[in-house]
């Protein structure tokens, strides 16, 4: 029974499903670490997904698709920064506004420019030479037979962790998120740091969208993400603002999801409502038992006012 459920393909599915959460979650981590809550992630993901898909469809190049996604992510990220940092708008609301804009706009452009669901070639799976053949525990299939964006997502985790914890840039980001007044007094340009992290968040969200539309799914449809971006934001809290924490959250959530799909595929008699519910419930329960220490950025959602 267990070996029927915990197959190598279930673990491979876990890795695939976790990818968009990791990409979007890492971006959100940087944004929140600097004190800006970006609730518009899902909308930016949709725009990234659409532009990546459209570009890949007309040029035939998935690489150009990614570049287009990064571009649109940067633009929307900078717009978000302008709204949240310069105009100091309430971050919860402006995020919902950006989400709605992305949701509507991506669908509108899809209808105008493409019309009906089509598929693209997208990124093929890359079998890492030598490693992808490892039969032992299915390691080859689980870890080394994925598309390029999966590898990128997993490589970005140690990189993000390093940048946040061991570089001056990371120190500045954390300082701005913990105590912007003090950071300002020490000569850190609070506005510039926040612009950078929020723009980065936009870029990562768009990349997460691209990882769906031109790598994992290879199709585009209205509301392709179905609220995936909101789960990514939730997982940032699960990971307590640490890249490895995001990884743990994304893997746990995706693993339970892959298992519940496998359970219904092999015909075990579990009501599908409860199967679909499982990832959400287990993520909450896991957090109850997880470590209690919090590193919540103290200045999260608080706009910076000099001399307050």
């Amino acid at each position: 029974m267990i070996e029927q459920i915990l197959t190598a393909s279930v673990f491979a599915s876990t890795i695939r499903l976790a990818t968009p959460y990791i990409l979007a979650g890492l971006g959100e981590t940087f944004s929140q670490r600097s004190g800006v809550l970006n609730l518009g992630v899902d909308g930016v993901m949709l725009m990234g997904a659409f532009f990546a898909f459209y570009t890949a469809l007309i040029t035939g190049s998935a690489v150009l698709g990614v570049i287009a996604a990064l571009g649109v992510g940067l633009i929307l990220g900078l717009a978000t920064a302008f709204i949240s940092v310069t105009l100091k708008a309430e971050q919860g609301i402006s995020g919902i506004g950006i989400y709605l804009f992305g949701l509507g706009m991506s669908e509108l452009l899809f209808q105008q420019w493409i019309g009906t669901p089509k598929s693209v070639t997208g990124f093929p799976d890359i079998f890492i030479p030598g490693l992808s053949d490892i039969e032992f525990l299915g390691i080859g299939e689980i870890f080394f037979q994925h598309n390029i964006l999966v590898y990128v997502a997993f490589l970005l985790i140690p990189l993000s962790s390093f940048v946040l914890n061991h570089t001056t840039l990371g120190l500045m980001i954390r300082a701005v998120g913990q105590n912007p007044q003090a950071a300002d007094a020490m000569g850190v340009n609070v506005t510039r740091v926040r612009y950078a992290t929020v723009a980065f968040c936009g870029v990562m969200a768009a990349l997460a969208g691209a990882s769906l539309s031109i790598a994992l799914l290879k199709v585009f449809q209205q509301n392709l993400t179905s609220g995936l971006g909101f789960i990514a934001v939730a997982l940032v809290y699960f990971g307590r603002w640490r890249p490895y924490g995001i990884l743990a959250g994304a893997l746990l959530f995706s693993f339970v999801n892959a298992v519940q799909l496998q359970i219904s595929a092999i015909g075990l008699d579990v009501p599908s409502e409860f199967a679909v519910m499982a990832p959400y419930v287990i993520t909450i329960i896991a957090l109850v038992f997880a470590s209690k220490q919090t590193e919540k950025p103290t200045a999260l959602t608080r706009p910076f006012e000099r001399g307050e």
Partner: protein
Amino acid sequence: MSKIRFSAVLVVLVLLTGILSAVHAQDDVFRVAAVAPSATTDLAFSQSMFDALTLIQAEMGEDMFQFDFQDGTFIVDDAAVALREWAASGEYDLVIAHGSQYGTIIQELAPEFPEVSFAWGTDVNTFGLPNVFAYTAAAEQGGFINGAVAASLTESNVIGVVGPIEVGDAKLYVDGFKVGVAFVNADINVLVTYIQSFSDVTLATEAANAHIANGADILTGSAQMVVGPIAVAVEEEALWFGTQSSQADLAATSGVLFQVYRWDVILNDMIASIQGGTLGGESYVLTLENGGLEMQISEAAEMEEEAMEVLQSTIEDYATQIVSGDIVILPEAEATPEPQATEEAGS
């Protein structure tokens, strides 16, 4: 505070109400208004109705038939606003609520506007109202044929199904499909996953991937999120069987057979009834017999002519047996109900 300001605006706007009065249009053009839950390009449920109305317009001509279509109205209350406005305007000969979630709205609305004809689906319940038509599709019929053909094509003897919620025409299709498979070969393993969503493409895709990993070489599914599983079929060179609308273009060489809902067949009947003065009280079921269910072989599938002919005759053979009653797909309690003709229209 701003309440005062707001109230003032409100009063002014309400005052405008008195000035505006509804203009009743009377001409020979048959006007239809329809509301549907997803996009008109969903390759599934909403598109099937949009295509049907477009087809009727092409047949009758734009000077004789016009329609308004509000798509993407998955919020039930928003549909209620649209339906009420159309009914109250008096400009439409037929108001369609295309989605079983809209049934309650029609039940409440239709008695208020007895002069307007309503249609809703998918169901056969006219609520005993003389101005309500109901319509549905016997999805298990095409499901059976899809299943039987799939069973003859599978090499791995494993077939994967991705469904939304286990209700309505999706359930009928899946149930019919399973019976069709078993009819040909009871040893084939049909894996069924309901993902509890009509729109979550990611989950649908991974469900399809799970089926492939478990050995499926044929996939099928219902609702608009199947674009994901179709892409999986294309990528994994599995075969795809579809329902509701034709997905031949997307499924490319993977596509085999599609059960297409031809709502135009029953809409034409409704239009004739309304023009004859009957505003409702009847329900319609799309079947293979009345041509409302059409089995379309994918034109994108690169099939040899001979194989094509064999497939065509197999399909016709099954269809004949289903129509004649030689093949009973589902027990009566589980099948699509018979259409009801209300004993008497109104009192």
